[in-house]
């Protein structure tokens, strides 16, 4: 499971060293083993929310597996990723924003806009080579707008992304109030291709989601940009005083989230073969819920993008289980998601309380 290498995996050579001879006077010699233990304990706490996500996911798999036939079949599990690939991408972008202590309410609307815009462009006969990049770029552009509002105009992220959300929704209706089907070959091909071994399959959408997830992981843990994201989330003032490029990083985070929303819009369009202005309503809350259930703390500074994947999968499993159950009405989905969210919020709270 997601053991982040940044502080744990490579710890061996450094932590095992004997206390050095030139320790300052008065500094009690501390055995390396003890230090290591303490570091591990500290890390444990840091990982606890993610551990919680893993536990929930495993529990759901076990419950589902014992309750329903074929629940643990490769097909069902493959579909779990495939069906939720757009949400994975959304949650990845949202993770960055939440890690800085911000929030992005615009992503659902951007998904709709990206879809509607793409559908209209396909309809007007533009080639896929133009349409697909534009669908992503419109997200990036709106991300820039949100970022500029947050940074230059100094509006709260909540309000800035709310404005972008209204803007995107409004544009959707201007472009096409009705659902616009996409019949382009490119989209059809992307939507129907399957790769896989045996019953394990993956679609281009799934691959795109995983690539984005991997890149996000690299970005967060192996670049200065990523580390700055964590620093900003902990304390923006400190990050600034440490000489870190706070403004650029925050702008980057919103652009990233917007771009992810654009990609998610593309993936959503691929799966629905249409663009519709009422798509994606409530998607932003689901994405936020997935990130929180994945162990990212909403105040920022702590969390992992791989956790967000777990969060998305957990939410997806709820949907799958309700489908398998058959008798449960659709509205139970939102009630279950709310319940799960509640449990995780309480768990996070307990962890934070223990830490202080």
């Amino acid at each position, binding site marked *: 499971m997601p053991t982040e290498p940044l502080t744990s995996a490579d710890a061996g050579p450094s932590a095992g060293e004997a206390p050095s001879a030139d320790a300052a006077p008065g*500094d009690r010699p501390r055995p390396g083993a003890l230090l290591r233990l303490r570091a591990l304990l*500290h890390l444990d706490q840091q990982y606890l929310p993610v551990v919680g996500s893993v536990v929930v996911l495993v529990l759901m798999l076990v419950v589902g597996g014992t309750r329903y036939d074929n629940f643990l079949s490769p097909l069902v599990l493959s579909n779990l990723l495939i069906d939720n690939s757009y949400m994975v991408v959304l949650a990845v972008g949202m993770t960055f924003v939440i890690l800085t202590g911000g929030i992005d309410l615009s992503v659902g609307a951007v998904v709709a806009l990206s879809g509607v815009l793409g559908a209209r462009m396909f309809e007007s006969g533009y080639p896929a080579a133009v349409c697909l990049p534009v669908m992503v770029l419109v997200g990036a552009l709106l991300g820039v707008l949100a970022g500029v509002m947050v940074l230059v105009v100094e509006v709260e992220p909540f309000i800035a992304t709310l404005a972008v959300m209204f803007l995107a929704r409004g544009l959707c209706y201007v472009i096409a109030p009705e659902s616009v089907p996409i019949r382009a070959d490119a989209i059809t091909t992307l939507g129907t291709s399957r790769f896989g071994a045996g019953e394990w399959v993956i679609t281009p959408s799934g691959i795109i989601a995983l690539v984005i997830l991997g890149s996000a992981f690299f970005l967060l843990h192996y670049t*200065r940009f990523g580390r700055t994201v964590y620093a900003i989330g902990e304390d923006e003032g400190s990050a600034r005083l440490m000489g870190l490029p706070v403004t650029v990083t925050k702008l980057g985070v919103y652009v990233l989230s917007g771009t992810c929303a654009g990609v998610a819009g593309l993936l959503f369009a691929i799966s629905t073969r249409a663009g519709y202005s009422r798509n994606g309503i409530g998607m932003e809350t689901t994405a936020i819920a997935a990130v929180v259930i994945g162990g990212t703390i909403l105040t920022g500074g702590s969390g992992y993008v791989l956790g967000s994947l777990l969060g998305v999968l957990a939410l997806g499993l709820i949907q799958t289980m309700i489908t398998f159950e058959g008798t449960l009405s659709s509205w139970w989905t939102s009630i279950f998601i709310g319940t799960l969210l509640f449990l995780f919020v309480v768990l996070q709270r307990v962890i934070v309380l223990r830490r202080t």
Partner: protein
Amino acid sequence: MTDVSLEFPGVKALDGVDFRLFPGEVHALLGENGAGKSTLIKALTGVYRPSGGHILLDDVEQRFATPAAAQAAGISTVYQEVNLCPNLSVAENVMLGHEPRRAGAIDWRATRRQAREQLKRLNLDLDPVSGLGTHSIAVQQLVAIARAMVIDAKVLILDEPTSSLDADEVERLFAVMRSLREQGVAILFVSHFLDQVYAISDRMTVLRNGRLVGEYLPAELPRVKLVSAMIGASIEVLERLEAETGSGAADPGAAGSGAVTGDEASGATAPEEAFLRARGLGRKKSVHPVDLDIRAGEVIGFAGLLGSGRTEVARLLYGADRADSGTLVVGGTPVTLRNPRRALRHRIAFSSESRRVEGLVGDLTVRENIVLGVQARRGWVRRLSRRRVDELVARYVAELDIRPADPDALVRNLSGGNQQKVLLARWLAMEPRLLILDEPTRGIDVGAKAEIQRLVATLAGDGMSVVFISAELEEVLRLSDRIVVMRDRTKVAELTNTDDVRLDTVVGLIAGGETRP
């Protein structure tokens, strides 16, 4: 820096200040609050942009737009609050933004190695992987210095680094400063503690009200003159201050006068006299059980280092934290102080050491801050009448000489001393029988300090009990009838403050009997 000015509309925070700093020296920057020290530092480090003047670094004019730009030019700052990221590892905090990279990715192994080397330079043996948040403030501060050195800082600015350090830690910091000085780093050092300034600095610059008073060598400037340069008052004022506040201890209301008992266990006093009686009052991980009697009209001083448990005891007495052991008797009835409201009902008030965070409500007005306590006690339904509010506010603004005397001014715009007075007014308006003052004179100017000291003496004279906590032992000695000495979260002694109790007696107790270098 020459002729640097910095204006905020309406206020001239810095007015044509010249300041120079040479490589290989420790230069102390001194001044009262509001003198412009912090502003000067912020102008120097790109946090604020000066409206006039020049900043020359190695004879090259600089204009720093951001802290990052200043750091790139070799100016690093370590702030009192340690502006690092506790959620990240020590290594990351040292290296953040300067991590070695390989093929575009951060090379964590090399990052940790370099961090360890940097820490070694400062004689710090820390596990670079450990989370910064697991270390003490003092260590975090040294980590901040290590970070500053990563960029080969030519100028290192230490803004009140010693405020929350104990003596050992200060010595450790000084060792680091000396070694950096030998390496040719120019160090700008800001501190309120004059001992430390004289111990470490090679040169001093004094600011007052945003203007330069002068640049001095420590050897040339005796302490008294330094203080008078800082406060801009003649020595006579200081002496008057001494005389006035000195009278506090000999206040007629003081109980136990003439008791020449030196060390004595608490509880030797007759219990029925005590307004408040604590037995075995303690809280796990915070403070060991404490016995304490407080009588009416008595000033009890708490002496001890930061973290010795002095604040923690005060918080227990107020119910700010809940005690998990011991009993408390207030005015003859046993009580459990589950929250501050309980304590207030028993007419105990507590003024926190952290004015901004735990005391004032910055965006409310002076008026609202003063009546807040009284109003909270009445509940929200029974609003104080406008007349009663005006009476209260007028009375305390006059009595405590709060400036500006505008009840509608927002409290966060007041100076530190006046903010402290507003806070005091809030508690006094509630007419407490026991007033706990935690560091009421920290970070405020000398004049306000004297007024507050005088006030404490007057209040005790009127029969109020006061617990007085201060890092400045002289102040505690001057004001208190009895002194409770705290060390390592434990009450180690209680002294009746007689003439033969001297500073070194208390220092000895705080230090635990050992003689410190």
